[in-house]
């Protein structure tokens, strides 16, 4: 979908919005991961701050609640020395579209450099990116069921750091794929990074229509689905699913699709277990596994901050280069070495 690619990149192919990995090429995704790697190191030092975004304003625009995601973005921005502002805006049921447009108009007066956006409508981040003035970078913190690119990329970072090359890996994603914005982006990212064995595991009620068109295989049986895989990604199951005719009960779900120590043995002995969080112990994952040696769940949190620092600095950089290029040289900007 070249649409997404074009919207996310400057004329020079630099990142200027981060909405979804779809439409970006392998080189770009690897650059994001490489940049994130350096920020992981920063996170382990005593001095965790770098001055990259000093003087820049980052606004958290959360139309949908999420304390976790919001706080990691806040932390990431602060570690980049940016000024951070959080706006919690709930959309009113009757005037959704209008108030979003109006909200964006009102925000113009604040002259911020970047919006981190979370919204319950799929395509909201694209919409906002197409409506803001061209020098504002948009980072998608999750839109409807469509995308959650920073989560997917931090998952890729986790896989790369602990498992290496994507080409030889087999990855299973288990759970509520239908309602998961993360799963779609995980599939896109895995494919672009060269992974060819991606398995989606779950009951038909939680599997999106025609998902195999994205180049994955689907499995109703968890044991055969995770047989011999290198990575098991468990998705969170929301309790609403049990109330609205998607699943009969938490008990039956855990019996069929819960990741227990016994079940995990079906995967490779050195397989890693991941979960975007927050975890539902006893529903999608057993405590022994969540807290066990193969679990990367806590690592993912730290990687999440580094990854967000990476995309924020890259997108800000792309925007600023664009501004600078327009101001200084109407033609394309050449890179010069700094002695």
């Amino acid at each position, binding site marked *: 979908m070249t649409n997404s690619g074009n919207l996310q990149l400057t004329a020079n192919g630099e990142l200027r919005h981060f909405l979804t990995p779809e439409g970006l090429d392998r080189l770009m995704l690897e650059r994001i991961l490489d940049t994130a790697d*350096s920020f992981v190191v920063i996170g382990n030092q*005593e001095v965790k*701050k770098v001055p990259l975004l000093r003087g820049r304003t980052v606004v958290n625009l959360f139309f949908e609640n999420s304390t976790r995601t919001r706080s990691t973005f806040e932390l990431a921005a602060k570690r980049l020395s940016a000024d951070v502002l959080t706006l919690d805006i709930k959309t009113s049921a009757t005037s959704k579209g209008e108030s979003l447009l109006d909200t964006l108009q009102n925000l113009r007066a604040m002259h911020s450099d970047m919006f981190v956006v979370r919204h319950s409508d799929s395509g909201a981040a694209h919409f906002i990116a197409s409506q803001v003035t061209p020098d504002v970078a948009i980072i998608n913190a999750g839109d409807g069921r469509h995308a959650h690119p920073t989560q997917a990329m931090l998952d890729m970072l986790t896989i790369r750091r602990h498992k290496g090359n994507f080409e030889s890996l087999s990855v299973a994603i288990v759970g509520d794929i239908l309602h998961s914005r993360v799963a779609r982006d995980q599939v896109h990212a895995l494919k672009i990074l060269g992974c060819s064995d991606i398995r989606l595991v779950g009951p038909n009620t939680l599997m999106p229509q025609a998902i195999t068109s994205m180049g994955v295989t689907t499995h109703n049986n968890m044991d055969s689905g995770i047989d011999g895989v290198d990575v098991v990604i468990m998705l969170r199951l929301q309790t609403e699913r049990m109330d609205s005719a998607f699943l009969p009960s938490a008990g039956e779900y855990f019996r069929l699709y819960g990741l227990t120590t016994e079940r995990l043995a079906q995967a490779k002995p050195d397989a890693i277990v991941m979960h975007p969080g927050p975890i539902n112990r006893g529903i999608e994952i057993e405590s022994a596994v969540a807290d066990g040696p193969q679990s990367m769940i806590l690592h993912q949190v730290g990687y999440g901050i580094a990854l967000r620092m990476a995309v924020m600095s890259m997108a800000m950089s792309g925007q600023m280069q664009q501004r*600078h290029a327009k101001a200084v040289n109407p033609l394309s900007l050449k890179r010069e070495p*700094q002695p």
Partner: protein
Amino acid sequence: MGATQTLHYPELADTPALVNNLLDQIDQLIFTQKLDQPLVIGIHTGGVWVAKVIAQHLQAPLGQLDIAFYRDDFSKNGLHPQVSPSSLPFNINDRHVLLVDDVLMSGRTIRAAMNELFDFGRPASIKLITLCSVNQRELPIQADACALSLDLEAGQYIQLQGPDTLKLSIIEHANHD
């Protein structure tokens, strides 16, 4: 490309001699300034190679800085993914630091390095050690010890090759501007 230029600067042909000259200057500096137990910190990439030699000579602890996140050209040239992270395996508070780079030219790299150093702590002093200095300062920064100072023409740059055999040479950029 390099051969013709070194004829104009015959000193460059003998890099080891320049390094030895620098080590002598450092010994002198430590003695006259009474720099007790200095820390040697090199700036990536060439500065680290030179710093290694110095640290070995002084039997002093060695650290390295990558200034990628402290550069002042972020808005113009963007962020390059870092390859090697900064690593200071010691506390720099109240210590004397020998900050080492291979080439001092505009002074911006040193400005960034000092900013980064001060995010780690407050040293007692910083002495700037460079193998070579090109007279094109854009900031008021000078070396405390330097083996060679020269002027270059527009489009010419000096480069240190390493890490094992250190060799300085001049390269030319065909399309400058």
